[in-house]
């Protein structure tokens, strides 16, 4: 039943294909019946009627293809019949004549191609004559779709029948030249038909037409594939015949789709050696292509092939050099950008990216080639209108990033062309590029070891080092960027401490312009790197700094410590960084004391840390941490003679009373007790294996004439014996007990007697008593400890304490510890009188 409603284009297509397909089936049926009946005339009549369906103009290429395949299959029956007829004695020449009686040109040519292929196979005719005849006669169909499929059929059925070198049809049947001629002619004709498709009908539905043409591309390309597969095709033939004919057709057809597709076809289809040998001709075509062709993609696939070719064999690179392949390729890119003034900037940049990729793969040690690529790119883009477009800038960033990863980044940045290309970017993009540069250097792990390189690098990343006029700063981005810059500082490195120090000085000078919010990121790494230098300088044997003429003056440890001092002070001044500055002062103090052995400098660092503690630490939690750090650092320092040490220790101990909460005070005093009791264990310098009391470097003749003298502390002094001041330790422990009691009373006043905090403190105090008892502190006798044990036991007996599982565990662990000590034979005499 017919459906009379209005159909969509898709439904129409389905219906038309259905109708045509039914007709093909019907006629094929009659054709086959006639074949069964041995009735050649009837068979030819029905086959022609079947093939008439291919004359339709209604179907899209896709639907037409389905119909074509159907007819193609049916024609195989006819072909088989022809062979049968032939074996019965009928000549192919006869059949070849007979099929020409078909009334319509399209069916006639399909039948002719079918017989023709059998004719060639029988060798009753010369292949070259039949092929020539067929390829010429097909000109009779000039409708694009029909013509393309007809010629595709011709191509298909003649496959394997060409008089190719080594083929059985060679000789009388012709030679490779005839085979080539046939395929080239068929290709040229098909391409013409394909291009004409674009210009048929109204110009309205251009997009649809282009889509349909894309679907047919492979029919045209098939010819080129067959050409490339010919046995007889050697380089000479390719160079003298094939390439010229193909390129001529590609260029002269002046069609974007065809050019884009065919150039790729040629590049992918033929061997690398052919391309390399004919590079001038191939490249000469590029500027000639239509302006809409994406030449950068064409060039990229050519370069891709060539670099893979180069990777196969080292001698290939020599061939490249002999023919100056790189120069030719670069020249082609330049000509393309000159010729195609309307080519988007992004595509131009993409072309140079392809070149840079090629150079990176083929010439890993030719930075000069990269230089030329960048220069060329700069020239091409500087003259261009839309370089500020996002797309273009993205490509420029990609181009600039590429050599950073394949070559030494610092050397790449040193190319004069690099900053020129970078200057094409907008300021905001420059910053993105700066981030890229830093990330790459961090990833690759390059070391920057010359002050001039530091300056250059910081020029490149200038948008990260100081403010440029931009207000759209995102706080989180800013933090991330600065963290990157901070990490970069550790890549400024040199084996020679003097050189390393020079790098840091240069960096600090530059970073100082960055304002407070950057300094808090950049100064700490500089200071820590400098402290590393102090360690190296101090560890070096005194005679080692007799440096070569022209080498940098080796700075004294004191000088570098002063540099650290300046960094920390600058950080403190920048505001809101008091904690970091304090920690820096403390770390530097330890370095001054334990590495450089400069007493006065170490003292000065502690003093600065104390000033910050008193004036700038923002809250009580930070105060607690800061004090713990002060005590920890001071405890380790062995440089101070009794008097200055007493001053520092007294101050630090005094700070414990400044803390807000009683519990914090109590714990701080316990920690302070260790300030009066240094382990008799190895000192840092012994651990370092150098320096020490005897080997401490004396006044060094190479240091700058600061008028160093004993008074200003630039002469290293030896470390003091460990302090073991039992009296003061006891004072601290007693104070801790007092504070714990006070805390207990305070809680009672607040009606919170059940709080177990005091008990925690008591157990902690007990542990400290045990520590000093074990160390042999004479003022802690067994009876003193016994009293404390009983006090703690009484506290612990309370219900509230028994309910605090953590506390009970702490207490039990402490008792177990005592038991373990008692069990040790060497401790027996000490612990004997202790009753638990």
């Amino acid at each position, binding site marked *: 039943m017919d459906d009379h409603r209005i159909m969509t284009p898709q439904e129409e297509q389905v219906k038309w294909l259905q109708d045509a397909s039914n007709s093909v089936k019907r006629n094929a049926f009659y054709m086959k019946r006639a074949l069964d009946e041995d009735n050649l005339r009837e068979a030819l009549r029905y086959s022609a009627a079947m093939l008439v369906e291919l004359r339709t103009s209604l179907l899209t290429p896709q639907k037409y293809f389905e119909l074509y395949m159907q007819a193609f299959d049916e024609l195989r029956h006819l072909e088989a019949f022809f062979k049968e007829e032939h074996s019965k004695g009928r000549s192919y020449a006869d059949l070849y004549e007979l099929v020409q009686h078909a009334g319509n040109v399209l069916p006639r040519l399909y039948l002719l191609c079918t017989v023709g292929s059998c004719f060639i196979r029988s060798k009753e005719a010369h292949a070259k004559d039949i092929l020539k005849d067929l390829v010429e006669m097909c000109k009779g169909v000039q409708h694009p779709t029909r013509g393309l499929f007809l010629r595709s059929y011709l191509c298909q059925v003649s496959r394997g029948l060409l008089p190719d070198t080594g083929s059985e049809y060679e000789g009388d049947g012709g030679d490779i030249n005839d085979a080539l001629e046939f395929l080239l002619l068929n290709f040229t004709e098909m391409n013409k038909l394909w291009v004409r498709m674009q210009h048929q009908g109204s110009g309205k539905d251009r997009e649809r037409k282009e889509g349909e043409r894309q679907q047919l591309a492979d029919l045209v390309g098939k010819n080129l594939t067959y050409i490339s597969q010919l046995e007889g095709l050697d380089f000479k033939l390719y160079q003298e015949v094939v390439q010229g004919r193909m390129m001529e057709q590609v260029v002269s057809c002046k069609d974007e789709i065809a050019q884009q597709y065919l150039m790729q076809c040629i590049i992918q289809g033929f061997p690398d050696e052919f391309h390399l040998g004919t590079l001038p001709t191939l490249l000469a075509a590029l500027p000639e292509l239509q302006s809409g062709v994406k030449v950068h993609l064409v060039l990229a696939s050519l370069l891709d092939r060539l670099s893979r070719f180069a990777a196969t064999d080292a001698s290939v690179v020599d061939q490249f050099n002999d023919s100056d392949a790189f120069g030719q390729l670069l020249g082609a890119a330049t000509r393309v950008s000159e010729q195609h003034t309307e080519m988007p900037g992004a595509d131009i940049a993409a072309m140079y990216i392809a070149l840079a990729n090629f150079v990176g793969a083929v010439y890993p040690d030719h930075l000069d080639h990269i230089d030329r690529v960048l220069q060329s790119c700069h020239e091409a883009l500087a003259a261009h209108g839309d370089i500020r477009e996002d797309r273009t800038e993205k490509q420029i960033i990609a181009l600039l990033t590429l050599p950073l990863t394949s070559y030494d980044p610092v050397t790449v940045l040193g190319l004069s062309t690099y900053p020129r290309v970078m200057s094409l970017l907008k300021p905001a993009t420059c910053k993105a590029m700066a981030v890229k540069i830093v990330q790459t250097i*961090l990833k690759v*792990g390059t070391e920057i070891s010359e002050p001039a390189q530091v300056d250059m690098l910081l020029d490149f990343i200038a948008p990260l080092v100081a403010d440029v006029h931009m207000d759209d700063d995102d706080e989180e981005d800013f*933090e*991330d960027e600065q*963290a990157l810059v*901070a*990490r*970069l*500082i*550790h*890549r400024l490195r040199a084996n020679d401490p003097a050189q390393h120090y020079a790098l840091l000085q240069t960096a600090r000078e530059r970073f100082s312009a960055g304002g407070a919010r950057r300094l808090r*990121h950049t100064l*700490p*790494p500089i200071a*820590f*790197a400098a*402290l*590393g230098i102090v*360690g190296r300088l101090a*560890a070096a044997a005194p005679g080692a700094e007799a440096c070569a003429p022209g080498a940098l003056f080796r700075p004294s440890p004191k000088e570098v410590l002063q540099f650290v001092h300046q960094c920390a002070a600058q950080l403190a001044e920048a505001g809101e960084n008091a*904690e*970091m500055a304090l*920690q820096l002062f403390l*770390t530097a103090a*330890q*370095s001054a004391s*334990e590495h450089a052995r400069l007493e006065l400098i170490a003292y000065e660092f502690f003093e600065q840390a104390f000033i910050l503690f008193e004036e700038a630490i923002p*809250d009580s*939690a*930070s105060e607690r*941490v800061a004090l*713990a*750090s002060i*005590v*920890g*650092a001071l*405890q*380790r320092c062995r440089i101070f003679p009794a008097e200055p040490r007493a001053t520092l220790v007294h101050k630090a101990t005094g700070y414990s009373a400044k803390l807000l909460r009683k519990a914090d005070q109590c*714990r701080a005093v*316990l*920690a302070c007790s*260790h300030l009066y009791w240094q*382990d008799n264990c190895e000192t*840092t310098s012994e*651990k*370092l294996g150098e320096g020490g009391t005897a080997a401490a470097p004396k006044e060094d003749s190479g240091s700058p004439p600061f008028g160093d003298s004993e008074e200003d502390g630039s002469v290293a002094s030896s470390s003091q014996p460990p302090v073991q001041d039992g009296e003061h330790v006891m004072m601290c422990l007693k104070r801790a007990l007092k504070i714990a009691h006070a805390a207990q009373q305070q809680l009672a006043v607040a009606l919170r007697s059940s709080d177990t905090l005091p008990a925690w403190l008591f*157990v*902690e105090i007990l*542990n*400290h008593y045990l*520590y000093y008892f*074990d160390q042999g502190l004479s003022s802690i006798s067994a009876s003193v400890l016994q009293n404390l044990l009983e006090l703690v036991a009484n506290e612990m007996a309370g219900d509230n304490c028994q309910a605090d599982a*953590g506390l009970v*565990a*702490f207490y039990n*662990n*402490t008792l*177990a*510890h005592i038991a*373990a000590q008692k069990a040790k034979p060497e401790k027996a005499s000490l612990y004997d009188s202790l009753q638990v």
Partner: protein
Amino acid sequence: MVLVLCIGDLHIPHRATDIPPKFKTLLVPGKIHHILCPGNLCTREVYDYLKTVCTDIHITRGNFDEAAAKYPEDEVSPWGNNEALALVQRKLDVDILISGHTHEFKAFKFEDRFLINPGSATGAYSDVVKDPKPSFVLMDIDGSKATVYIYELIDEEVKVEKVEFSKDD
């Protein structure tokens, strides 16, 4: 069997650029069950990185971590002193105590408990040890037994050592 990564004192960006790449290739996501970190990372970026290795992270505050990070803390005095560490261990009532700050790897038994300092994963500058070697520790805990693998970077090569601990009941 539980795998616990102990890693700390990275001091990025103050003292080091990054975790050594050879360590990073070892720290593949999805294998580690917990991370214990004795502080001094010091940036959010590093924290985010550790999160990619394993989401279950326990961190204490180091003296260079920003206060805003709000990690728990416990001070040891004197620094790195075994007795002082043991005191903290008794207080926290733990079988294994992970500590940091010294940048010197340590792992040993102390009165039937274990003290582990994984060192500095970046080999960061230390005021205690000269030229610290980058190191971290991986613990394989199985009931009352712990196998401790120490990863150290020596001359650009990763060296692994094994120490076994078991807790007697």
